[in-house]
């Protein structure tokens, strides 16, 4: 067995890593919503096809994936040193680096920094890390208004909703729903607003432009943090991020500690992998990089908050560790047949889909997201598209193992599933027992009609609710083989 180092996980009660109900229950509601399934099906299919087309253009795509994987493995192996290197380089260039052990501490640091500026309005660049820690809620509690400036994130914020996709937070909405949200929630929007994408974008542009010009404080995440130079990188499509990163006086960036890349040159690998995997573009329209403070140009107060929030606990697990390689492209969401039918909200956490199913339970501890590792058929589509080759199916299996071990350690009586699994293993331990089990199972033939069973008791009723089940054969293969061998072929 592997040694568990007992690193702290992300604390409960703050942030958005835990759902309020198990995945199957939330998924049932999502599957029953045909509009939701249509919206997500259409959107994921479009991105999936775009991605496949642009990836096929790159002759050395597999080598790029290997390079991305190796670089991230190198980062994880030396993360403690790389983080100190990053801190030294960024500090030397005028940034102030803060260390946050968890969501609560990160929120406290950022809130304090904003309050110290004397301003109460901030503009935000789309960021998963700040969604993860529930920063907007923490700012609101301190009387600070945070405005999301990414178009999709703005839609979600206006609708008092939660993001349902890592890259496309409003993927669960179609354009007529977005028009309704704008008409209802956006001040000064023209009454004759249509649902044409260009019209909707123009309305958002007018709404945001005023805020960009007046904002004194911006908050962002970062896609990459270069240890060698202390540089932060934000990759985006709209240019709204660039506005936030350049116009305000103060810039505060919350970045997960796993976002480190060793050298500036290593970005060449990730800046090829990320846009093709995420938006299906050869290159994203805006890549912003900044290193500390540039006197007289851009924000003059630059803060970086390095966020742990359970990441060190993930790092301590030799199998689960590669989850931290994730560059948040969301290619795995777009190919996942489960995600396509449930959308992101069913996963509870801000990290949905296959990567969320392995990341969230590791950040919070398996007990708080126990249903997520089972929210997959292990079909492997996610592993095939992952730009850094995270073996998501293997980690799902690993987390299921952790869950079962933890349940058995904390309960005196085994679960019905554990009893069934133990019984099956016992019966399969020897061919004699297995043959007898097969004989016993033939009782089920009494329930069958033309070899099919249409109704079984719980929990197998969950199968027969929508599918017939085959009856055990009258003669097993081994009995047939035995009879054949004694008769001669």
């Amino acid at each position, binding site marked *: *067995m592997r040694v568990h180092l007992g690193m702290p996980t992300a604390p409960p009660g703050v942030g958005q890593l835990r759902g309020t109900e198990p*995945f*199957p229950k939330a*998924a*049932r509601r999502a*599957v*029953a919503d045909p509009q939701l*399934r249509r919206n997500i099906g259409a959107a994921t299919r479009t991105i999936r096809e775009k991605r496949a087309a642009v990836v096929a253009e790159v002759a050395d795509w597999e080598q790029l994936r290997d390079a991305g994987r190796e670089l991230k493995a190198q980062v994880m192996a030396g993360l403690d040193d790389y983080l100190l290197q990053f801190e030294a380089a960024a500090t030397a260039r005028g940034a102030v680096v803060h260390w946050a052990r968890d969501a609560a501490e990160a929120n406290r640091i950022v809130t304090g920094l904003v309050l110290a500026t004397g301003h109460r309005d901030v503009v935000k660049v789309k960021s998963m890390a700040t969604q993860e820690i529930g920063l907007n809620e923490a700012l609101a509690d301190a009387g600070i208004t945070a405005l999301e400036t990414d178009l999709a994130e703005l839609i979600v914020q206006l609708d008092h909703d939660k993001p349902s996709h890592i890259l496309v937070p409003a993927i669960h909405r179609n354009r007529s729903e977005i028009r309704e949200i704008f008409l209802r929630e956006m001040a000064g929007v023209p009454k004759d607003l249509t649902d044409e994408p260009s019209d909707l974008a123009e309305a958002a542009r007018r709404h945001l432009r005023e805020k960009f010009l007046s904002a004194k404080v911006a908050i962002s995440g970062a896609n990459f943090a270069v240890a060698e130079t202390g540089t932060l990188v934000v990759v985006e499509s709209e240019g709204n991020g660039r506005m936030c990163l350049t116009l305000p006086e103060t810039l505060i960036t919350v970045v997960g500690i796993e976002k480190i890349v060793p050298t500036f040159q290593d970005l060449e690998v990730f800046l090829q992998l990320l846009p093709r995997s995420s938006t299906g573009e050869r290159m994203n329209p805006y890549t912003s990089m900044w290193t500390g403070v540039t006197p007289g140009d851009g924000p003059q107060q630059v803060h970086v908050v390095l966020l742990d929030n359970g990441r060190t606990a993930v790092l301590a697990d030799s199998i689960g560790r590669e989850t931290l390689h994730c560059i948040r492209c969301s290619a795995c969401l777009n190919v996942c*047949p489960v995600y396509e*039918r*449930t959308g992101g909200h069913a996963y509870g956490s801000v990290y949905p889909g296959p990567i969320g199913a392995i990341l969230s339970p590791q950040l919070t501890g398996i007990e708080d997201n126990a249903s997520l590792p*089972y*929210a*997959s*058929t*292990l*079909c*492997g*589509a996610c*592993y095939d598209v992952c730009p850094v080759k995270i073996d998501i199916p*293997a980690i799902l*299996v690993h987390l*299921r*193992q*952790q869950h*079962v*071990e933890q349940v058995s350690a904390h309960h005196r009586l085994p679960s019905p*599933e*554990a009893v069934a*699994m*133990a019984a*099956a*293993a016992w019966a*399969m*331990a*020897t*061919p004699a027992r*297995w043959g007898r089990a*097969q004989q016993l*199972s033939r009782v089920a033939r009494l329930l069958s009609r033309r070899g*099919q069973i*249409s109704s079984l008791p719980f*929990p*197998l009723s*969950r*199968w027969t*609710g*929508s*599918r*017939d*089940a*085959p009856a*055990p*054969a009258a*003669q*097993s*293969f*081994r009995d*047939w*083989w035995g009879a054949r061998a004694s008769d001669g072929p």
Partner: protein
Amino acid sequence: MRIALFVSCLVDSIFPDVGKATVTLLERLGHEIEFPSAQTCCGQMHINTGYQRHALSLVRHHVEVFEPYDVIVAPSGSCVGSVRHQHAMVARRFDDELLARRAEAVAARTYELSELLVDVLGLEDVGARFPHRVTYHPTCHSLRVLRVGDRPLRLLRHVRGIDLVELPEADVCCGFGGTFAVKNADVSTAMLADKMQNVLATRAEVCTAGDSSCLMHIGGGLSRLRTRVRAVHLAEILASDGSPAR
């Protein structure tokens, strides 16, 4: 060639015709089949549900049973996938390096049926006749764990009388996923509904695949809908001589 048949627990108990077809096919091709009768189960269900401790004894048993054989075949992509990609992993989790190496050695000699036919025996035309409209579902573990690619299709294209039609969105999972089908029945059913819609769109009489488990799922759905489309294992088509036995 002397070939050991690892028939899988599911085929042994519920779909013996698939095992019989595998024997018929390989004997027709002139090979000697052995069925090591001590075999039980590869432990995939235990591993994938989180019960690797129970699976460990099944892995050890499987290794002991199949170690004496040079070539092992199974009519199941996912069982071969488990042997090849999970058995050594389970042994190592419980610090049994010796068992892990033995498991790797057995795995290296274990083939899924289409791999055995195409790669080991060098065949694409196995002399089958199956005069029906057929569509092929490439199961996830055949496709993405074993990477069998188009081997099953190459075999099917040589079947006499077959009308092979392409399945739309073929590489998308049918929603089976072992215990997933029960733990997440609603999502599983939604995935199956889309798979069946694609199968029905082909107007095929038969949906085939290299895994009885996925066929049990697709076939169970098709049976519930009373579609009369049959789920038939690849081995049964390749073993067929065109007589209307099935």
